[in-house]
């Protein structure tokens, strides 16, 4: 068992990280701090989850959010998708294992993965609306968000949602406010089975190794850690019993990466685009310098007058 984070003191505490610890800031160039803080991570052990949704409730509670009353369509997923209020969602999958013919009930807690190379941040056009702290947490700054929805297009995990009320993007913050004062995320705190644990990324990997060894000893030969390298690893990781096919867990992407279309849009298009516009302007400027204005001459006017008067005109 992983030791739970003790309850907080009641004394006010200074946050352990802040604006000085940014390693990435959307639509800005920044100098990252010389020293990186210990990378943190949340580990979600899917094999231990009982689908009680305590984490989902704790998330609403801590972030002071309320979800609308939904409609039951015969599945356990409630609400049916992530929303601007539901920042984490239990996704239930009934999967028949072809090897054993057993029905397996796969329950995955969906939410922001806190990518080391975040596509949302790459796509964001508003300076500072998305930031990444040196401990790995990716956070949205609502005051700077303009609601364009580019983060939705940038994210390889389909996580951010735009609020229809505030027209701002929302996603899991990894409880950056709690972590800054030495607490773990609210979901981890609420989890009754310790399926969600929080600590340094190294600790989480070590803890995961023990869990994976345990699962393998129970016949889950393909048990493994989900820490996808395509996005530089994530600060939310899963222990999966079938790590060879993450997609069976309600479409968890196998080998996610920032879409090449997004890379092209945010990369070469910006430079080439401004170059093309600049070239068009420079062409006009230089052409005018060389060729000078194209003026109508008196001869042109006279010719037009003769034409209008009906006199024959020969050049």
């Amino acid at each position, binding site marked *: 068992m992983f030791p739970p984070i003790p309850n907080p003191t009641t004394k006010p505490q200074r946050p352990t990280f802040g604006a000085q610890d940014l390693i990435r800031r959307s639509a800005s160039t920044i100098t990252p701090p010389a020293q990186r803080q210990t990378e943190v991570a949340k580990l979600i052990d899917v094999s231990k989850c009982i689908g009680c949704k305590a984490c989902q409730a704790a998330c609403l509670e801590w972030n002071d959010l309320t979800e609308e009353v939904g409609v039951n369509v015969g599945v356990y997923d409630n609400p049916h998708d992530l929303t601007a209020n539901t920042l984490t969602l239990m996704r239930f999958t009934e999967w028949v294992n072809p090897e054993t013919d057993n029905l397996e009930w796969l329950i995955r807690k969906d939410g922001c993965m806190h990518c080391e190379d975040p596509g949302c941040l790459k796509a964001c056009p508003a300076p500072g609306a998305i930031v990444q702290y040196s401990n790995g947490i990716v956070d949205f700054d609502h005051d*700077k968000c303009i609601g364009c929805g580019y983060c939705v297009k940038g994210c390889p995990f389909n996580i951010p949602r735009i609020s229809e009320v505030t*027209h701002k993007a929302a996603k899991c913050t990894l409880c950056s406010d709690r972590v800054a004062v030495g607490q773990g995320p609210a979901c981890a705190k609420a989890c009754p089975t310790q399926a969600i644990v929080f600590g340094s990324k190294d600790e989480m990997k070590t803890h995961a190794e023990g869990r994976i060894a345990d699962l393998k000893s129970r016949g889950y030969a393909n048990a493994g850690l989900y820490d996808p390298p395509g996005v530089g690893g994530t600060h939310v990781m899963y222990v999966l019993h079938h790590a060879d096919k993450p997609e069976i867990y309600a479409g968890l992407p196998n080998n996610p990466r920032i879409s090449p279309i997004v890379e092209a849009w945010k990369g070469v298009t910006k430079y080439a685009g401004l170059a093309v516009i600049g070239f068009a302007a420079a062409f006009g400027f230089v052409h005018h310098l060389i060729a000078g204005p194209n003026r109508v001459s008196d001869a042109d006017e006279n010719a037009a*007058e003769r034409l209008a*008067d009906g006199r024959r005109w020969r050049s």
Partner: protein
Amino acid sequence: MSADDIEPGDAIHRGHPVIVDRYTKGARINHWITAASLVLLALSGLALFHPKLFFLTGLFGGGQTTRMIHPWIGVVLFFSFFGLFLRFWKANLWKREDGTWLARIRDVLTGHEERLPELGKYNAGQKFVFWSMSALILVLITSGVVIWDQYFYEFTTIEQKRVAVLVHAIAAVLAISVWIIHVYAAIWVRGTIRAMTRGSVTGGWAWRHHRKWLRELAAKLPNGRSKTTHAK
């Protein structure tokens, strides 16, 4: 003889100098609404296009309003340009002399108009601006609606939106470049801008740049004194 390039309102007036009506008041209002919306779209779009240009959101009252207002200006542009399209498409049909003109683009750029064929109301460059803007605005409205998440989010997949935003950015860059060429041409060829402000040009301007059009108009002058003649 079919004169595709004579538009309603085009007329020639004898005098010193000769004055040629080129754009009706309606066409000019239509044009300036289109121009204003295109400039506002370019500014608000470029604000989101590159971080260095984000300060342009200040012109629109901040990032949120820029994001909100840009697509609506796009709708204005679309309908306004559609009006221009209906007015101008016929005069922009490709003619044989346009190929010759293009082949002699060197003479065009060096101002050797005497070496160019006589042209109707528009030259190949103007036609290029017309048709490329028509195509680009069609692409921009289509891709723009796909990424207009406030109203159309659920109709497309995220992958489709990714393609659309890339296409939108590229089409916008091209549209802005075509616009720069369009404005530059109007400045370079002196006497052009009054066509869109006052609605008319001088006879000399028409003689120099659109002689075929001028001849067609002169041939319609009353009392039959004028006859279409061909130089050389």
